[in-house]
Every structure is written in structure tokens, then in C-alpha cells.
């Protein structure tokens, strides 16, 4: 019998095509917002996780400075004896100290002040493997190499008026260096304008001999990194005598970021949910109008034997239809929007693998959700229709 009622309901919707579609649009907006934003949020999470996977889960990062934030360029908060301290633990595999600062860089008499960072060339491969940098053209540092730099993608493009290329010579802090490598594009200016050199060179130009900005501690395989990090933090505070450093593990950072992303996702979906509520109010409005317009028809149906339940069913099918169709169209548009965002983001920052998975739970859930929203918004109007007194309804003009 439901089939018959569906036919009656569809017939009614067809009679008011324009209004039916306008009502559907209200739901489409809400659902497409929910679907696209959820998929994009998931994609962001995937991208962040992928980036951290590259960084590795065996790294403890110690940065000197204050306990409240990462060091600013030119701040050297760790002493060389701190590095020896980190190395003394059995859990430690290697320690990679690094420095960074903004430096005057001159090329064909144009001067700029990008970030220059430096590490021991001995650890170059270890370091690079855990970073999002990748040398696209040229080569990496060799062990003990000095007088060479690897430059960010933008320096090879439009950072300076004249393009810097492999084998170009540039002045960093007044000293001349040869460009031996160019990084792949990362997508943010800070990274794409940076310059890398050996820590020995950096010490000749700007870095103090006995201090560094921070250090990456790579732990041995099988070490419980969170537990070790906790121990290390306590011991190191004792050793230093102050708390002016930040010690973090990639897993802890990842957890934090994922927490933040999770909150953002809830906020976004909450806002999209409001759009859906507006759509649902639209359905209720349309349904009430429909009940009013069809009062006489409801009276006729009752006079030829329609029970309250039958009338209620017909009206609920109509409002559910708004929800289901709005949900399906909204999901399709939402997926397209998410894919559009993916291509936009990837064009903007090519290094970031922005993976949009068309999660069947998200799509199915959105359609189910909007069908339920449709039915819920139809309940009161449908009840009003079914409760009409047949004699009064028949007299209604």
C-alpha cells in the first residue's frame, strides 16, 4: 500500500514543482556544506598525519628559549654540553643539533633577509629524511662539505629579481657560497625561501660556537618514546637548572593537532548543521502551506475512507522526499566541492598529499540524517492534516 501512497505523494509534489525544488534547495545547501566540510576536514587530518609519518615517530625535539613558545630566529637556547647530555642516554640513537637565523642574503646586489638554517652535514641525510624538504635539482651536502648551500624553491623563481640557479654564487652574511641544490616546492613562503648550509659555515658567519637553537633526538628502535621524553624532560630540567626549553615528541604534537582539528570539525559541522535546520524549517513551512491548500482535498480523501494514518503517511512521504532528494543532491554537490578544494589546495601547496576519501559513512550518514530531518519537520504538519475534521475540511474553499 505504501507504493500507492508514494505515488499520491509524488503526484502532489509534481503539482507544485517550483516550490518543491525551492524546498529541496534549502536542504541541499545544508547537506552539501556538511558533506564537503567533513570530507575536507578528514582530508586535512589525513594530510597532517601523512606529514607526521614522514617526520617519524622516533624523534624528540628540544628547543631552547622560553617554556612558552618556540625560539625566534637567532635565539640559541641550548649549549653544546646539553647535546652531550642528550647523547649520554642509552635510549638515544643520535642527536642532530641545528641553528637558524635570518641573514642578509645578497644576489646581484639585491639584498633580502630569509631564514638560514644549518646542521652538521654528517647528519644531513637523517635530517632530510625526517623533513618535508626534498632536493629536486642538484645534490645533497656531502659529509664535511663547506662553502655550499641548498636553496628553497622560491629563490630559484621570483624571490630575487634575478633567478638564482644551480652553481650561482650568493652572499650569505657577507660570505660567498655556491648553490649545489634546489628544493622541491613546499607551498609556504617561510620554507620556500629558506637556505640550508653546514653548521661549520654558520658558525663562521652568525652562530655562536658553543650554542645551538635546538636539537632533534632520534631514539633507538623499541624505545617507548613518550615515557623516555617524560624522563628526559625531568632530568634535563634538573641538569639545566631552569625550564627555558620546550621538549616535544611528534606523536604528542600530532595528538594535539588532531585534537584541534577535531574541534574545528565539530564547529564547522555545527555551523553546517544550522544551515540544515534552516532547510528543515523550510520543509515544515512548505508542508504547512500544503496542508492549508489541500484542506478540501484532505476532506475528500477522508470522505472516501482515508484514515488519519493514511493522510499522515502521505504527508510524511512528501516531507521525507524533500529530505532524501535534498540529501542525495547535497551529498553529490558536497563531494564535488571537497574534490574542488582538494585540487585547489594541492595546486597551492604541491608537497601536501591532500587525500579526500569519499567516506561512505559520511555520505550515507548525511542522506539518512537529512531524510530524518525531512520526516521530523513533516510530523507536525502531517499531524495537523490528519487531525482535520472531515466535515469542516470538506466545507473549506
Amino acid at each position: 500500500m505504501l507504493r500507492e501512497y508514494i505515488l499520491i505523494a509524488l503526484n502532489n509534489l509534481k503539482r507544485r514543482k517550483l516550490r518543491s525544488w525551492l524546498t529541496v534547495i534549502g536542504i541541499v545547501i545544508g547537506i552539501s556544506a556538511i558533506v564537503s566540510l567533513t570530507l575536507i576536514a578528514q582530508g586535512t587530518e589525513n594530510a597532517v598525519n601523512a606529514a607526521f609519518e614522514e617526520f617519524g615517530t622516533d624523534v624528540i625535539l628540544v628547543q631552547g628559549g622560553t617554556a612558552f613558545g618556540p625560539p625566534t630566529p637567532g635565539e640559541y637556547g641550548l649549549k653544546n654540553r646539553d647535546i652531550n647530555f642528550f647523547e649520554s642516554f642509552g635510549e638515544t640513537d643520535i642527536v642532530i643539533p641545528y641553528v637558524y637565523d635570518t641573514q642578509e642574503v645578497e644576489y646581484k646586489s639585491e639584498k633580502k633577509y630569509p631564514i638560514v638554517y644549518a646542521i652538521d652535514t654528517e647528519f644531513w641525510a637523517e635530517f632530510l629524511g625526517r623533513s618535508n624538504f626534498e632536493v629536486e635539482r642538484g645534490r645533497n651536502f656531502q659529509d664535511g662539505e663547506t662553502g655550499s648551500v641548498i636553496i628553497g624553491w622560491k629563490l630559484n623563481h621570483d624571490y630575487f629579481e634575478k633567478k638564482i640557479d644551480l652553481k650561482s654564487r650568493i652572499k650569505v652574511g657577507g660570505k660567498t657560497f655556491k648553490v649545489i641544490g634546489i628544493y622541491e616546492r613546499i607551498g609556504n613562503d617561510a620554507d620556500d625561501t629558506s637556505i640550508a648550509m653546514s653548521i661549520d659555515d654558520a658558525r663562521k658567519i652568525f652562530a655562536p660556537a658553543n650554542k645551538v637553537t635546538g636539537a632533534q633526538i632520534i631514539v633507538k628502535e623499541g624505545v617507548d618514546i613518550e615515557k623516555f621524553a617524560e624522563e628526559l624532560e625531568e632530568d634535563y630540567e634538573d641538569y639545566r637548572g631552569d625550564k627555558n626549553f620546550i621538549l616535544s615528541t611528534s606523536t604528542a604534537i600530532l595528538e594535539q593537532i588532531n585534537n584541534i582539528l577535531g574541534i574545528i570539525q565539530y564547529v564547522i559541522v555545527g555551523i553546517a548543521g544550522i544551515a540544515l535546520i534552516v532547510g528543515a524549517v523550510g520543509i515544515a513551512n512548505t508542508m504547512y502551506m500544503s496542508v492549508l491548500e489541500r484542506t478540501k482535498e484532505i476532506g475528500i480523501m477522508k470522505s472516501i475512507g482515508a484514515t488519519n494514518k493514511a493522510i499522515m503517511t502521505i504527508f510524511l512521504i512528501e516531507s521525507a522526499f524533500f529530505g532524501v532528494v535534498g540529501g542525495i543532491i547535497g551529498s553529490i554537490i558536497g563531494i564535488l566541492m571537497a574534490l574542488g578544494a582538494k585540487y585547489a589546495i594541492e595546486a597551492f601547496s604541491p608537497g601536501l598529499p591532500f587525500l579526500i576519501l569519499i567516506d561512505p559513512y559520511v555520505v550515507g550518514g548525511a542522506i539518512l540524517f537529512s531524510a530524518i530531518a525531512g520526516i521530523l519537520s513533516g510530523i507536525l504538519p502531517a499531524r495537523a492534516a490528519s487531525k482535520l475534521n472531515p466535515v469542516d475540511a470538506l466545507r473549506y474553499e
Partner: protein
Amino acid sequence: MTNPIISLKKVWKIYDMGDSKIYANRNISLDINKNEIVFIVGKSGSGKSTLLNMIGSLDYPSRGKIFLDGINISSLTESDLAQIRGSKIGFVFQSFNLINSMTALENVMLPMTFQEIPVEEKIKRAKKLLNKVDLNHRLNNLPTELSGGERQRVAVARSLANNPEVIIADEPTGNLDTKTGKMIMNLFNEINKEGKTIIIVTHDLDLVKRTSEHKIYKIVDGEIN
């Protein structure tokens, strides 16, 4: 005496308008036997439609009891009432009351939908009924594409859809010219011969005179005398 198919026992319909009360029907008792044609006549506002609606189980009496086929319909729930109305009673109204978005055939099929009759059966019966009222060439027309007489014939066909025992008609010829009205009346006579009980509200006394065997109830100010 045979059991009456419809029996009214001291039926009142009172509309409470707050400060005043309208006594639309007062203390009406009557029996209608199977296969009778009954006319209810009276002035406008005398309470004819009110009475007919209660007989047709569209409305509850304020006081008194109404029996249809021995069932006290004044004590039934709304959904039971709808069920009885759909299966035992067929309505014909002055203003046709067809559903304008449905074709003649669909209009005649609709009462059967509410009785959960299978589709093929519905189509077969609806076609047969439309054929009976001479409309087999108008099956797929919408009511707006039909003349008044044709619409009323669709309505008569619809009233017969679930093969009810009683046909109730409120001024069925009121919107029709004399000739078309006569045609509808002939249809009722024919249906009556097939065994149906027919109750007609009218103030067309010519219509009454031309009907061979019938009963007349005159209603004055809500009362039958």
C-alpha cells in the same frame, strides 16, 4: 419487519458557539431500510447536510445513537469510522469533490486504495464503473477537462468503488441543468434497482416526484415531522 440498515435514535447535533448554541438537528429518530430511496427535503439551513453527514459517518452526533448495519457508529474511533465510511458508504456531493490532480480513472480508484485493494483489481473495477456511467472515453481526463454532468458521473462511479451498501448524496443535481440532473437521477434509480440504499438531500421537488418508490423526510428547523 426487516432490520433497518440505518437507524437513528434521538439524534441531536448541537454547535456550541460560545455564548449561543445552534441546534442543527433536534431529536431525530428514523429508520432506513435496505434498498430504499430516501429523500430529505427542507429549507436552506434547516439541518439537512448536518444530518446526512452524521448518517454518512463523517461526523459524530452530539447526543443519541446512529446504527449502521447494527453497528453503533457514534461510539467508534475515528479510524474505525473511516474504515466503515470507506467500505459501506459512498458519497456524492453537490460540488462533485473530485481530486483535480487525478484523472477520472484515478479518482474512481482512490477509495479502493484506502481499502488496500490490489492495483489490477482496482483498475478493472474502476473501468467497469466508468463504463457503467458512460464515461469509458474519458478515463484519462482530469476533472477540469470534463463537463459538470461528466464530473458528477465520475463522482457516482467513485461512490460505487468499494461496492457500498449505502449511497449518500447531498444536492447531487444542485450544480447541474435539469436535463443532466435527470440523467444523474436515472443513474441513482438504476443503482437502487441493483440493491443499494440511497439517501438524497435535495430541494428539487420535481426530482422527488419523478422517482417511483421513495420515502420523504421533511426537515424543519432541525426537526423531522
